[in-house]
């Protein structure tokens, strides 16, 4: 292996980061309405949301990509591999984030809800001003953990033609016939990407904890 071999890996890295970031963003945003539906007072809505979450999580990601890329892409509108991967992984992330949010919201002391109701803050303000900021801190470590997992999950996008890090690694290993070294390098890249996430989440958690502690 030589320096030139790094170039495709770095190019793959860019796709991995874009896909991870995009899917996580979709998940983090879509997770909110999904959670709202999951907690709805109307049981059909609640039941539907629960079913969606369970099914999305139960089916392997590769199948989602196939369904979206080939199924949806063929029958509804053409869609490029990257967008299909983004949609599929975003969907999965949304289901998982909704569950992470649910745990975080459940951990908020019920006195906070009561105080908000007594102050007539309304649903939206209660969510935005009271619940979300406190739940955010609780959700942070799990969300960071999930983000790291998601980053590795993006490797499935290579099956439908997104030349991300795992694809480049696989390619390089076949061209050089050197499985172990290449995978060591790819693994190192993933770890290097995950460390700042892990570190940031630990720092942010510590900071937020310190802010509300004595």
């Amino acid at each position, binding site marked *: 292996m030589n320096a030139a071999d790094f170039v*495709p890996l770095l190019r793959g890295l860019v796709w991995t980061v874009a896909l991870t970031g995009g899917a996580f963003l979709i998940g983090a945003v879509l997770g909110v309405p999904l959670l709202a539906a999951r907690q709805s007072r109307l049981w059909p809505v609640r039941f539907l949301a629960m079913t969606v979450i369970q099914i999305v999580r139960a089916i392997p990601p590769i199948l989602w990509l196939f369904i979206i890329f080939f199924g949806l892409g063929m029958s509804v509108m*053409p869609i490029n591999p990257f967008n299909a991967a983004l949609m599929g992984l975003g969907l999965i992330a949304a289901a998982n984030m909704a569950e992470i949010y649910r745990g975080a919201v459940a951990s908020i002391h019920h006195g906070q809800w009561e105080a908000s109701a007594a102050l007539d803050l309304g649903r939206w303000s209660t969510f935005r001003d009271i619940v979300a900021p406190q739940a955010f801190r609780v959700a942070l470590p799990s969300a960071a953990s999930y983000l790291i997992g998601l980053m590795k999950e993006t490797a499935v996008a290579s099956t*439908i*033609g997104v030349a991300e890090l795992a694809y480049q690694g696989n390619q390089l*290993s076949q061209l050089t016939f050197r499985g172990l070294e290449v995978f060591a390098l790819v693994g190192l890249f993933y770890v290097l990407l995950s460390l700042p996430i892990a570190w940031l989440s630990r720092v942010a958690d510590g900071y937020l904890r310190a802010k509300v502690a004595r």
Partner: protein
Amino acid sequence: EDCTPKHQFSTIEAGTLTVAVTTFVPHSFVDDSGNMKGIDGDIAAEFAKRECLKVKAIAVDPAAAIQYVLSGQADITTGDWYRTAERAKVMSLSAPLYTDQMGIYSKEGFKNVSDLEGKQVGTVQGYLWVADLKAMLGGSLKLYPNSVNMQQDLSSGRIDVAVDGYSTGVVAAQKGALGDVKVNVAAPDDRVKATKEAAQAAFPYALSAKEFGVALDAAITDMHADGTIVTILKSYGLDGTAAETGAPRLVE
């Protein structure tokens, strides 16, 4: 630029040959600059050139490659796809490009199927001999997703013998990846049909693309006649004999 296509046919994207490229060295891969390469890749590129088409290569997984063509998002896929009767039910298969023989990789230099008995044997998913070997060897056959993984296990000693495409082995040996492992073409044996007649590699394309298929087959026949395929095979370090495919046939 003046260019007259030899045939009239349509492709998925007008003026472009869209190819789903699996990563399968030396048959098929996409290089650093995004060009389709490998034996299959070079042949497909030559076809595109002769028909005045630009090439759009998409690197994908084998499962997705087939789906790409089935769902009308690629014209063909490359990757040492063998012509079999079963596959022909789902997709059209082009005229044979070259033959790929079953290779036996071992330190001892085994040539015969009978040498595999009682050994730990590894092979790669997707080859024609997999079913026969499985029937013959049962639990002592290990299946791998690609050659690299298998070769690693061969060198670590987890398997004693590997069975893989002969051409793949030749190229790996040239790159020095096999060490003291020798690669031989398997001698014909009744228990493994693939040893008796070499498999023919082809380009799968959509069943509905009739005119496209005619043009593709014609181009392949021309390339056999004018020595293009031999040249391509030699450029990957193989001897030209693999280009002598004989008549098209479908393995049952």
